[in-house]
């Protein structure tokens, strides 16, 4: 017990000393992005600016932590791997709008909140992965084609409730309206080869194994599989599929982002803005995108050879992501309604 109380006293005193000095020498990050993707960037940032970075990583709950910590929250920045949490944070009023010329110059408007509350840092497309053996060239060219009864029992996907699929369905709602989206989703469900399960890579693996012929997956997984030295069988999975960028004649492939926002009560707002600006500059953009085979959001940033080779020039949907995010709740209800995951 004595040790306990000593520990508490020690913690209290350190808490006091921590809050007593709010300088711009550090920046505190709540990250939904995996540490190995951002650590090298943060290191480079610290070397360049002398600003220390502190991180808490989790896959969920950080938004709520930020919300309830309120005025005294130590967090400066929320980093996310999807538009979902960003739009949730906006809805809860947790982000402070910022206006930075550097960011506005580096990031196209479709990847920024119109009111400057969040900004995209990398982008990715949600693609159709098609079996090289069993799907002929040109046999499928759009998201709408996935609803064609000829694919009955041939499609695999992860849970309809997964955030990537919610954004995709949300974009269908935003473009075509809820009614059309529902009949499309029902038809896709009827074509599923199995109950939605596993992650995006597991779907490509299922194509390799002959469980299905088509799957939905994010673009960067292709690069991650193709270069996987730790589990070489993933190279075979990737080798068994063609990448189809949907709707090249229409609105273009559905795009999503990983991004960031600055907390409303950030103790170090200047440092936070510096970090976000740093992440939109060419060098960081190139590294950040390459680290995960994503696309840089900054136009003119060189892409890695692998990305150029397999995901060269394609047409991406240019709808502002805020409009897609607004439909995510409706998309989730739709998934329940058609029993997509059952």
């Amino acid at each position: 017990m004595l040790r306990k109380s000593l520990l508490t006293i020690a913690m209290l005193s350190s808490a006091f000393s921590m809050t007593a000095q709010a300088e711009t020498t550090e920046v505190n990050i709540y990250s939904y992005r995996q540490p190995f993707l951002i650590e090298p960037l943060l290191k480079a940032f610290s070397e360049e600016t002398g600003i220390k970075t502190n991180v808490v990583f989790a896959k969920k709950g950080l938004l709520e932590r930020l919300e309830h910590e309120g005025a005294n929250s130590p967090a400066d920045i929320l980093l996310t791997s999807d538009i979902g949490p960003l739009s949730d944070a906006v809805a809860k009023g947790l982000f402070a709008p910022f206006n930075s010329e550097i960011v506005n110059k580096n990031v196209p408007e479709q990847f920024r909140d119109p009111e400057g509350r969040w900004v995209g840092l990398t982008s990715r497309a949600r693609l159709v992965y098609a079996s090289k053996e069993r799907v002929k060239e040109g046999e499928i060219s759009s998201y709408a084609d996935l609803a064609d009864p000829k694919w009955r029992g041939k499609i695999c996907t992860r849970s309809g409730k997964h955030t990537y699929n919610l954004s995709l369905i949300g974009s269908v709602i935003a473009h075509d309206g809820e009614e059309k989206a529902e009949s499309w989703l029902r038809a896709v469900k009827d074509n599923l080869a199995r109950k939605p399960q596993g992650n995006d890579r597991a779907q490509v693996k299922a194509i390799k194994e002959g469980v299905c012929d088509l799957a939905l997956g994010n673009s960067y997984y292709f690069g991650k599989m193709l270069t996987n030295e730790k589990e070489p069988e993933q190279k075979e999975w990737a080798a068994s599929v063609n990448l189809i960028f949907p709707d090249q004649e229409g609105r273009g492939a559905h795009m999503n982002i990983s991004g960031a926002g600055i907390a409303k009560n950030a103790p170090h707002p200047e440092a936070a803005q510096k970090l976000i600006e740093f992440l939109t500059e060419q060098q960081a953009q190139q590294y950040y995108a390459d680290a995960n085979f994503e696309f840089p959001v900054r136009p003119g940033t060189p892409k890695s050879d692998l990305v150029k080779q397999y995901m060269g020039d394609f047409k991406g949907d240019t709808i502002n992501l805020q409009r897609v995010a607004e439909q995510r709740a409706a998309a989730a209800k739709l998934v329940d309604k058609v029993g997509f995951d059952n």
Partner: protein
Amino acid sequence: MSSHSLQTGNTRGWLFSSWSAALLVALPVCSVFYLALFPEENIWQHLADTVLPVYIKTTLLLMAGVGALSILTGVSTAWLVTMCSFPGKRLFEWALLLPFAVPAYVIAYVYTDLLEYAGPVQGALRDLFGWQTAKDYWFPEIRSLPGAILMLSLVLYPYVYLMSRAAFLEQSMSLRDASRILGCSPWQSFVRISLPIARPSIAVGLSLVSMETINDFGTVDYFAVKSMSAGIYDTWLNMSNLGGAAQIATMMMIFVVILITLERAARARQKQFHTSDRYKAIDPYALHSWRAGLAILACGVPVLAGFIIPVGVLGVYATNHLDQLFNSDFLTHASHSFILSGSAALLCVLLAVLLTYAKRLNPNRISLVSAVRFSSLGYALPGAVLAIGVIIPLAAFDNRLDAFLREHWGISTGLLLSGTTFAVIFAYCVRFLAVSTGAVDSSLNKVTPTMDMASRSLGMTPGSTLLKVHFPLIKGGLLTALLVVFVDCMKELPATLILRPFNYDTLATYVYQFASDEQLEECSLAALLIVLVGIIPVILLSRSITGTRKGN
């Protein structure tokens, strides 16, 4: 003599402190109730119309399956190693606890790797029979409800094993001997005497298993099993509706309360106490030939499937990553795990003693008894939801204190408790208090009240009675509680992730970074370390539990 006579003036302090402890621990649960009552947008109707029936049905099946398998495995093995003698019995005594150190999410990953289409098992079968694709043959799908039941049972049966073994160890030999003299076969004696006496402890084990099952997320998520726990996360994260998630969580807690109440009602009339402390050493049934073989098989299968195979697979993976030992902060992560789990385990046991003893001193205060029960509810909440429940009161306290001090003294304390290790330890206590209370309570209930009366009539205070009379008698129960909570904390993941300070990792969070991306190989070494660290106290304490039986 009624139990009233135990209440004297100096039990007030016990009453007051137990009330405050119970309330403190109940705060996070109340926060979840609050979220459920005042959601930002009420989607209960939508849930009830669409997915809720599926969640409920799946959860019931999952609990029934895991409960049945755990009892079957746990009770039978506990009885074998306590009441019989066969080759390897000493080894199995502690080896049967080993699967307890393996986190459920790790075992799920390992078996999926082994048994899925691309894994070695199906690969060998395809080579053998010349099958080409998945459509040529039938193979049980590991990612399914039965698969999840199997995985969870493998790592949860030790709860039942621990509790029933402690109960069998405490049983009086004279009862068994009497039943045998009156013509019972060993089997009849087990069913009619040993089992009913051990039932309260088995029930405690079963309720722990049920609660672990109901709030498991890692396994059900990985296996795409739509349980209530999966539904909670789905509602919260994919529908951005924390209120709806809290509503399902509340329903889950009510579910658990009903379960426990039913169980208690069923044995309300049963009370047995040791009538003497003169223990005879256990005189085991000697098993020979095929009987011994069967006993070895019965004890061997759970150890093999729940520990040796998964740890073997991890070991093979880890050999490719031994370099990690030298270039990552392993020691730091491990020491974090140790300090957090150790402090939480000690605190949990202290709180459990305080609450159960106060209950014993005031058995007629329904309000106190209910408060103690209520304080155990944290265990029925999924970890991440509990974490939000912890954040709300801590942050509210921090912000109020900060505002107050600024106003009156011009000092800013900022966030005093939120985002510190205190928050993590507090969450562990809220989550695992049910575990320690269950173990301590079932030990304390076996001590006959006449002991208290004797001690108190000789002028001892309640406190010194506890220290000098009860403590030596319930040592086994205390050690069990300490061990179980420690290992549970080592494995705890969702709450740790959300509540931890900046730049702070435990072994579990480190494993999770990679495992969540289905890269088990990458973190096999850390996973192995969690298991190994978990084993040490398991073995040590298992030995001292065996030693708690006098006369052995």
